[in-house]
């Protein structure tokens, strides 16, 4: 049998299909490197928007960085923001369209460095948006420079002898800061390196999206991710390096799961 002529039906027998490409994931070939976490998270977002049936009210805001082209891959309306400004753009969309569902998708350089002010204030105001934060501890798009989340000793293009506190300061645990802000209702840290992690991450993103649909303020999902090109490792080794080095410093799990802060806690009486 000529395998080139096989149709999808020839390969997948009725009743045996356990997984398929989400309808909202477009056919454009992704520009991400093999082993990169972005593709997996994109797929989860496409799946969840489809499952929740919210395509017609969803506006995604893509960042500057590797995921600058996120808008090419998921079949929803998108706005491409300036570097770090996605939370402000999302605020603008959401405030004048309170009936819409708005989320940002940002990397560590975008969210934790150049956009640190925008993310802090959007979360502090409790903007009704979801934030997906991909933390791979490096600037991928520009060629592997140091990010605010780069670990101490980690070698990057701008820390060729490893990140050094005297010269570069400390790695920023921005998600821990975000969890302190009263406008957030759900803050969690996830990963997508195993099938089980992917399932957990999907549950977390779905919960974040549902919170926003229920107008519970800002929900924030960090995904500790690999950048095998930037880290100069093959995908398997990158996953191992992430488990051994990233997880001890950026532990996976919920940091906050509840409601926005009760305003009375912030009144004069207290």
């Amino acid at each position, binding site marked *: 049998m000529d395998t080139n002529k096989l149709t999808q039906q020839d390969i997948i027998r009725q009743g045996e299909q356990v997984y398929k490409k989400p309808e909202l994931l477009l056919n454009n070939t992704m520009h991400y490197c093999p082993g990169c976490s972005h593709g997996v998270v994109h797929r989860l977002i496409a799946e969840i928007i489809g499952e929740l049936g919210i395509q017609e009210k969803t506006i995604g805001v893509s960042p500057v960085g590797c995921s600058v082209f996120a808008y090419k891959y998921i079949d929803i*309306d*998108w*706005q*491409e923001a*300036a570097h770090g400004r996605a939370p*402000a*753009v999302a605020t*603008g*969309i959401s405030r004048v369209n309170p009936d819409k569902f708005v989320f940002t998708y940002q990397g560590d350089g975008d969210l934790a460095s150049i956009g640190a002010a925008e993310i802090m204030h959007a979360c502090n105001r409790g903007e009704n948006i979801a934030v997906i934060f991909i933390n791979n501890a490096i600037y991928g798009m520009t060629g592997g420079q140091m990010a605010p989340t780069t670990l101490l000793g980690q070698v990057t293009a701008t820390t060729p002898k490893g990140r050094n506190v005297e010269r570069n300061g400390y790695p920023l645990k921005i998600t821990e800061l975000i969890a302190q802000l009263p406008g957030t209702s759900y803050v969690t840290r996830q990963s997508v390196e195993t099938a089980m992690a992917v399932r957990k991450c999907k549950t977390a993103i779905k919960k974040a999206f549902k919170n926003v649909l229920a107008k519970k303020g800002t929900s924030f999902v960090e995904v500790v991710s690999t950048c095998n090109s930037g880290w100069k490792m093959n995908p398997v080794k990158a996953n191992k390096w992430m488990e051994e080095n990233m997880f001890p410093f950026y532990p996976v799990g919920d940091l906050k799961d509840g409601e926005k802060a009760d305003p009375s806690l912030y009144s004069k009486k207290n």
Partner: protein
Amino acid sequence: MGELKLMKGNEAIAEAAIRCGCDGYFGYPITPQSEVMETLMVRAPWDKTGMVVLQAESEVAAINMLYGGGGTGKKVMTSSSSPGVSLMSEGISYIAGAEIPCVIVNVQRGGPGLGTIQPSQADYFQATKGGGNGDYNLLVLAPNSVQEMHDFVGLSFDLAFKYRNPVMILSDGAIGQMMEKVTLGDFKPRLTSEEIENKYGSWVTTGKKKNRSRNVMTSLELNSEQMEKNNIRFQAKYKKMEEEEVRYEEYMCDDAEYILVAFGSCARICMKSIEMARAKGIKLGLLRPITLFPFPKKPIAELCKRVKGFMTVEMNAGQMIEDVKLSVYESGIFKPVKYYGRMGGIIPSPEEVVSTLEKKLIGGN
């Protein structure tokens, strides 16, 4: 006749925003224009028209909120003053590149840097020649009265949506702070979601509907050939503005031998200078550009045929004079163009204007 009120220029902007059906104002406090947001917060339009008013954490955030809101087809605006507008320049360039309609008010103060809080027109270049990166133009309107501060808000939104381009109202601290009587505009309802979808469905990001392909707001295009095409389209738009949107006012030009060219508060001062000059027998007139981009080149070329020369009066080191010189050059008729101005927040006096005119233009020094 509409309701007549005495108010500040900044208050007139706020009142106009509510009345013209604006959906959202996003701003950050800065002197001398903070009354815009303060007035809006007191008027609380969210209870009446549903207009959103939000104090942003910075001008950087405010302009990006305009990107977001404008990208959904809503009428959104901000106001600031010179250093704040510099901070917004990144966002303005992205907005121009993504072709998002919105209105930006600059109540100018003296610069550079933190400068002063007194009135200035030193952001003329920034407003009309760019400010942010890349080849783009804003449509720039220059009000010279509190009435025009009020009237230009609705006009700016109409032009912003007509061209899918940001529009700037370039005012200054004198007009923002001074009080005059204003005839207020009528209340216009905000557009409904259905109206926005029907009018702008081809580009707005309001959530992908079954009957249309997805819309994306972006200024990014890595394919150079396509990016050049985008630029050619932008330039065609700016050219159309030059053909259709030039606005200006001539004052006592019919018999004039000399012409003052001034915009905004300087144009008001020049009207007094003309009265003083004419008392001395000097036939002086005023050309007031109302749109700074597109600049009224043709009216200046027409005047070149019958006047002896021009003098610009500006609250800067001589910025608009470059556009006047270009206009004279393009007319093919040589006429001298002189400049008089003050900087650092100082407003020129009518006397200074006349004495400089006599010395520099009439006296030829």
